[in-house]
């Protein structure tokens, strides 16, 4: 046990005893006193001296002398007093504790939190049982001993045991014991609570906003409700107020986030600029609630202001909410969905409302599953040229799955029944199509899908390890009756048509889809055979290390919606991924049109990761013709003149000591123009972190042949570590950049 040297060396076993390991009902545990000498007057007083050690359950105190007054059961101890209750260790010269109500007072104390970082001194430490600590004229820091980087000194520090925060009254923030700033009151998170990413004052500069200073204030209104209020001063723009209220209710949890800039000095003609977002999600037994509503004051809001409501490159803001009630084999949902468009004069369709009802009857017969998806939708919009409609859709489907380890086959037949009531003034069909809308339409389309796949496997030895490889060829026949759909407002016959239907991008996964459109306003006829194969490599631990898939469609009847020249074959689609020894990850996909013998799109990404070092390079290509085919009747010269060809590098690695570097660079190769870059240096000490970062991004321009203009920011951010969760400086893309680190690897976990 602790020898009494002059300087009280910290007790060697000062380790954290988490609440779970603490003695239950510690106040009723027997007290054990060991000393060199004891003098006791029963029912009156007992004096112990000489290396006194008092233990009660997990609580322990050592001192030179201790006296226990019996009727009041008050213990006082003097000389090298060390008190340790598994949560906090305090050394002081005088301690008085009441064994009845566990009130303990220590004078001229030095304390150290054992379960979370935090230490300091105090003229007086008062602790009542296990619920409340109070320090008078105390200091608090999370820096290790002898590290004077920063500390708070305050006339009073209070901490409720259950709460995640400590309240400081008249705190002075001191660096190297020199007071930097004073506050009347401050609440500091001292335990890893819900509060992550709590960033202390951050200062940055950008040529658009000038000097920028953010000081977040956290207000813990109620365990189920907290608010973070962050005034953001921008020298070129004025003061913006961001508030984020988070709530927790039996119906689920969510947040209300708002940004408010009363007068924007850079755009005085506009009045107040604001942005708002409400998200909610909750599961309550059979019920499920979901909401995501965003709105901003004007459509160029994201061009001018760094915002968390949306991103600079967003085209629309989602405003949706749904409630669903679900059983084991059925579910029903009522949903409303609207958008705030962020581009001029584009009106969008709204779902006011949409009701889904899906019924599944697996194994009606041992070999037969039945499912009946049904949907009722009301489409509304403000554009007189666009029709409004109500749509009822029913798709009873019979599925006969047959699975074996080496073979799987599915036969599926369904009847797609759709009824439209369309209200329109004068929707103008495309030039060459003769389609005319009709008020009431009924469409019945039978479809048949036969899919089967084989699984072959072999084991082999390579590179000193056991591997296994599978080859999984699969083939699918799809028949969808060709039915007249010109009287429905669909994207094929009407330019920009389709209530909620747009052509899907075909990639490997799209080959086996029965519907090439996002919804059912147009159901593409089909009489085609899709074939493809996947091969997978597994290592000795049966972990998938590499897979490669390819596929193509052969059209028996030429789909009538294709443009003029007809093709018998779709383009080849390839998809592949590899995880080499958990440090090198690759993923690539490509679509090659064998008819025109050119690549429609292709992309690849590689990541090397070794301990703290990571580097990711990526390349993406989309052909101009392909972009035109997915955006029919739209002039894309404003977007791109020669398709898309973009390369990027993202990397991060420690330099030395606590210094680490992060950087990324993105370049458009069609115009050989830089798109974005971001570089940052972060120094992380034991209890604080400071980050300096520079980023630059391409400003939007209406004519892509004009010289590109960029906006750049320099950000200096400082944050105290150990307060709340690791509130270290982390890279946020809301510095204006849109591109960043990506993690699409399925084989990485």
């Amino acid at each position: 046990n602790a020898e009494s040297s002059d300087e009280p060396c910290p007790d060697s076993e000062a380790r954290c005893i988490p609440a779970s390991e603490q003695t239950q009902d510690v106040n009723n545990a027997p007290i054990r006193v060991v000393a060199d000498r004891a003098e006791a007057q029963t029912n009156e007083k007992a004096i112990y001296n000489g290396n006194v050690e008092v233990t009660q359950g997990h609580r322990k105190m050592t001192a030179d002398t201790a006296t226990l007054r019996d009727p009041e059961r008050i213990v006082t101890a003097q000389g090298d007093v060390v008190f340790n209750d598994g949560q906090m260790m305090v050394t002081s010269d005088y301690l008085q504790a009441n064994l009845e109500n566990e009130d303990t007072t220590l004078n001229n104390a030095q304390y150290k939190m054992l379960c979370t970082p935090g230490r300091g001194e105090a003229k007086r430490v008062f602790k009542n049982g296990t619920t409340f600590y109070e320090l008078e004229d105390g200091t608090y820091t999370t820096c290790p001993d002898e590290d004077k980087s920063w500390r708070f000194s305050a006339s009073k520090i209070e901490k409720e045991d259950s709460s995640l925060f400590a309240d400081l009254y008249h705190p002075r923030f001191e660096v190297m014991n020199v007071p930097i700033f004073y506050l009347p009151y401050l609440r500091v998170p001292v335990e890893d609570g819900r509060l992550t990413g709590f960033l202390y004052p951050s200062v940055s500069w950008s040529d658009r906003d000038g000097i920028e200073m953010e000081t977040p204030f956290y207000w813990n209104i109620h365990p189920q409700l907290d608010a973070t209020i962050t005034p953001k001063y921008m020298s070129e723009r004025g003061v913006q107020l961001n508030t984020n209220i988070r709530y927790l209710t039996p119906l689920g949890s969510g947040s209300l986030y708002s940004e408010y800039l009363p007068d924007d000095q850079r755009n005085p003609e506009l009045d107040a600029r604001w942005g708002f977002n409400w998200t909610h999600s909750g599961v309550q037994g059979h019920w499920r609630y979901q909401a995501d509503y965003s709105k901003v004051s004007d459509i160029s809001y994201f061009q001018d202001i760094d915002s968390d409501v949306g991103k600079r490159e967003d085209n629309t803001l989602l405003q949706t909410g749904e409630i669903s009630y679900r059983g084991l084999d059925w579910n029903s949902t009522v949903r409303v969905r609207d958008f705030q468009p962020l581009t001029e004069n584009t009106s969008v369709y709204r779902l006011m409302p949409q009701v889904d009802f899906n019924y599944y009857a697996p194994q009606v017969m041992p070999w037969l599953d039945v499912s009946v998806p049904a949907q009722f939708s009301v489409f509304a919009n403000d554009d007189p040229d666009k029709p409004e409609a109500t749509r009822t859709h029913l798709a009873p489907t019979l599925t006969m799955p047959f699975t074996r380890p080496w073979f799987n086959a599915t036969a599926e037949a369904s009847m797609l029944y759709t009824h439209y009531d369309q209200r329109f003034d004068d929707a103008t069909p495309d030039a060459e199509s003769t389609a005319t809308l009709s008020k009431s339409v009924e469409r019945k389309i039978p479809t048949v899908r036969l899919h089967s796949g084989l699984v072959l496997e072999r084991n082999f030895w390579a590179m000193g390890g056991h591997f296994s490889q599978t080859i999984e060829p699969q083939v699918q026949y799809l028949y969808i009756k060709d039915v007249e759909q010109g009287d429905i407002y669909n994207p094929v016959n009407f330019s920009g048509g389709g209530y909620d239907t747009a052509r899907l991008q075909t990639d490997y996964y799209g080959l086996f889809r029965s519907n090439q459109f996002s919804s059912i306003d147009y159901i593409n006829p089909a009489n085609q055979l899709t074939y493809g194969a996947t091969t997978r490599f597994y290592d000795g631990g049966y972990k998938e290390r590499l897979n490669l898939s390819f596929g193509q469609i052969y059209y028996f009847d030429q789909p009538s919606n294709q443009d003029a020249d007809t093709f018998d074959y779709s383009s080849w689609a390839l998809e592949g991924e590899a995880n080499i020894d958990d440090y090198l990850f690759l993923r690539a996909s490509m679509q090659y049109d064998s008819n025109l013998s050119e690549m429609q799109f292709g992309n690849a990404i590689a990541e090397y990761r070794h301990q703290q070092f990571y580097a990711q390079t990526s390349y993406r290509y989309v052909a101009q013709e392909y972009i035109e085919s997915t955006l029919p009747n739209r002039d894309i010269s404003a977007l791109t003149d020669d398709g898309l060809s973009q390369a990027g590098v993202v990397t991060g690695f420690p330099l030395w000591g606590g210094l680490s570097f992060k950087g990324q660079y993105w370049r458009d190769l069609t115009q050989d123009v830089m798109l974005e870059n971001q570089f940052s240096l972060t120094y992380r000490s034991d209890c604080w972190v400071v980050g300096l970062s520079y980023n630059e991004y391409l400003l939007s321009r209406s004519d892509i042949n004009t010289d590109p203009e960029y906006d750049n920011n320099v950000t200096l951010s400082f944050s105290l570590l150990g307060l709340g969760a690791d509130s270290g400086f982390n890279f946020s893309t809301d510095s204006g950049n849109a591109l960043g680190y990506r993690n699409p690897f399925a084989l990485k976990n």
Partner: protein
Amino acid sequence: CGFALRGSYNLPDEVDKVSLTSFDPYGELTRQMRNALRQHKVDLVSPSKEVANIHLLGESNSEQTLSLYQNSRVAEKEFRYVARYRVTVPGKGSYTYNTTLSRNFLDNPLTALAKSVEEDKLVAEMRTEATRQIMRQLSQLKGDIAEFERQQAEQAAMKDLEQGETPTEPNVIIETRQTETNTAQ
């Protein structure tokens, strides 16, 4: 070159009888997971201590910009779906995995509603593919259990080694005579 029809789903035999529990018992992921287990001839039983358990921890989807047109508008977006689950095998520890899927598509400002419906369709597709991928990942459990048992054996061997020295206990002190308190029990 040695290929043959695959004999088994390579599922560890600890998992031929399984109970399925979930963060959202009536959710779509749980329903599809039940179907996937059924198709792989896995016997679904109610939870009990002797039977392995698959617990669906949660699912999340996120969206990210992949590429920009020359006028800095979004060209390609990526949609990512992650499902997290934990497999607990009685007596052989519990293992947490996550399954990631991602799809990308060309963004198109005109048809906002169509794009959001497409996103929902992609999430539904990825959720179905995730259940197939989970079934493939379960074969990885074989390796992890073997590793777990190897470590158990190693620790047991270490313990036998340590058996020699008895833990140092300063001096045995009779705590109390508890005469009064425990007579009441």
